[in-house]
C-alpha cells in the first residue's frame, strides 16, 4: 500500500478514535439511566419555581365568589385564567389579615373592556354560542366595537362589568 494511503487511513483512524473518546467524555453522566435522556434533567425541571396554584386554594378564603361562579357560564374557568398566577398570594395572603397586601401579593383585577374582549370579542374561527343552552365549551361572542353602552347621565362609556357580573355573567 502506498505511503499516502496509509497516512490517510491513519488520519481517519485518529479522527474516529477522537470521536469515540469525545463520546465517552462528553456524554452526560446520568444519560441512559432511565431511558434515552439525562436522568438528572427530571430533578432540574422539578426545581423550577412554581407560579400557579390549584383552584381549591382560592375557595378557602373566597367561598362567596366560588358559589357565584358555580352558577354561571364561567363555572369551568379557573380563577387564575383572569387573575393571573396566584401561588404566592395563596401561600402568604392570609398573613395580612385586615392589613393591606404588599404589591407582590396582589392579583390582577381585570375590569376594562379589553380584558373581556380577549375571549369575547368576535372571532369567526370560534364556534357561535346558542343563546338558549348553557354550553360551557363555547364562548359567547360580542362585537365589542358595536356593543357598548354609555351612561345616559354622564355620557361616559360603561365597562362590561358595570352590567355583567364577571363571576356570574
Amino acid at each position, binding site marked *: 500500500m502506498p505511503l499516502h494511503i496509509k497516512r490517510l487511513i491513519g488520519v481517519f483512524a485518529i479522527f474516529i478514535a477522537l470521536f469515540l473518546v469525545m463520546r465517552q467524555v462528553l456524554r*452526560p453522566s446520568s444519560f441512559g439511566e432511565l431511558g*434515552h435522556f439525562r436522568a438528572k434533567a427530571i430533578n432540574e425541571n422539578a426545581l423550577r419555581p412554581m407560579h400557579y396554584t390549584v383552584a381549591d386554594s382560592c375557595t378557602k378564603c373566597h367561598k362567596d365568589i366560588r358559589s357565584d361562579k358555580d352558577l354561571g357560564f364561567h363555572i369551568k374557568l379557573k380563577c387564575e385564567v383572569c387573575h393571573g398566577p396566584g401561588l404566592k398570594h395563596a401561600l402568604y395572603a392570609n398573613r395580612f389579615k385586615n392589613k393591606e397586601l404588599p404589591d407582590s401579593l396582589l392579583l390582577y383585577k381585570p375590569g376594562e373592556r379589553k380584558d373581556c374582549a380577549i375571549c369575547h370579542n368576535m372571532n*369567526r374561527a370560534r364556534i357561535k354560542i346558542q343563546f338558549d343552552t348553557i354550553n360551557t365549551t363555547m364562548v359567547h361572542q360580542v362585537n365589542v366595537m358595536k356593543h357598548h353602552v354609555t351612561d345616559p347621565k354622564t355620557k361616559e362609556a360603561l365597562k362590561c362589568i358595570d352590567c355583567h357580573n364577571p363571576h356570574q355573567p
Partner: protein
Amino acid sequence: MTEHLQNLYEVLSKVEGYVYPNEIELNWSILIVLYPYITGLVAGAFILASLERIFKVRILKPTYGIALLTAFSFMLVATMPLVSHLGKPLRAYEIMITPHSSSAMAIFGFVYLWYLMVVLFLEIWFDYRRDMVIWANGTTGFKRFLYKLLSLWTTDISPKAVALDDRIGYIVTVIGVPSAFLLHGYVGFIFGSIKANPWWSTVLMPVIFLFSAMVSGIALVMLIYIVLSKIRKQIVDMDCLDTIAKYLFYILIIDFTLEGLDQIHRIYVAEESFEALHKLVFGKLFYSLFIYQGLMGTIVPLLTLGTLQFYKPKAKIRRAIYLILPVLVLMGIFFMRWNVVIGGQLFSKSFYGYTTFKTGLIGTEGYLMAATWLIVPFLILSFLLWLLPPWKKIETSHE
C-alpha cells in the same frame, strides 16, 4: 400582570382567526430556511461535478474544480444556521454523541459527516494530492506548510501513485452521487415526514428537494464560474456554459413538473386542510410563491433556457443571460425553501386561523445573521480557490 396583558395584545394582533397558543410565534425562522438552501447548493454543485467525472461530460471540465470547492465550502457552513438557531448552541454536539435512531435529525448528523468527510474531502484530496506535492516545492512560508500538511508530508507523485489516486477518486465520486441524493433527499425527508403538517407531509418532498437542490447548485456554479472568469480576466468557455444551461434546463423541467404534480395532487385530493392552504397560498404566500418562486424563479428561466435550445443569440448576449438567469433561479429556490419552511408554520393546524412571520435585522435569528451564513461560504471558497486554484492544476484526463 398588566405587562403580560400588554404582551398578549401585541401577540394577538399578529393573529387572524383562531390559532393554538404554540402556533403564534414561528419556531423555525429564516435560519431554518437557509439550512435546506445551503445543503441543496452543496448537493447540486457536487452533482454538476460528477457529470464531468462519472458521466464523462468533458465539456464541463472548466467547472469541475470550482463545483467541488463550492460544494465543500458550502458544506462546511451547512449546519451553522441550525447551530446558531439553537437556544444553547454549545450543546449542538450532543446530537452526535447521544443519537437515537428515531430522531431523523440525529441520523442527518451522520449523513452530513459521511458526505463531508468521506465524499467531498476525499474526492478533493485525491484530486489535488499530486498538485499539492508539486505546489509545496514551488512555494515558501505558510502556504508551503499548508500544502505539506494537506498532502500529509507525502511526496510520491509517481505515475502509479497518481493513477491510484485517480482510481480511488473515481470510486469516491461514484459513491458520492447516491450520497448527494441521500444528503438532500434526507433534508426533504425531515420535512416530508412531519405528518401533522399538511403543507409538508408528502412523500414527494424528498424528490422535490433533491431536484430543486440540483437546480440551485448548478445555477450557483454557473454564476461563480462567470464571475470568477471576469475577476481573472479570462475568456468564459461558452460551450461549457451552454452545456450547463442545457442541464439546468432539463433539471428545471423535472423540478417544475414535480412541484406542479405535488400541487395538482393537493388540489385534486382536496383534503380537509385544503381550504386553509388555499387561503394561505393566495394570501400570505402569494408574492413569495407565485411571483418570486413561480414566475421569476421558474417560468422566466424555463422560457429563456428553452428558447436558447432552439435559438442561439450572440455570445455576448448569451453571457449576459447566463449571468442573470442563475441569480433568478437562486432567488426562486430560496423562496421555494421559504415557502416550505415559513409557509408551513403560518397556518393553524386547527385550519381556522393564520399567524404572521416577522423577523428583525439584528439578533440571533435576524436577517444579518442569515446573511452572515450566506457570505461565509464565499469567504471559505475564496480561500480555497487561493490555496487550491483549479486552473493551475496539471491537466488530468479523468479517464
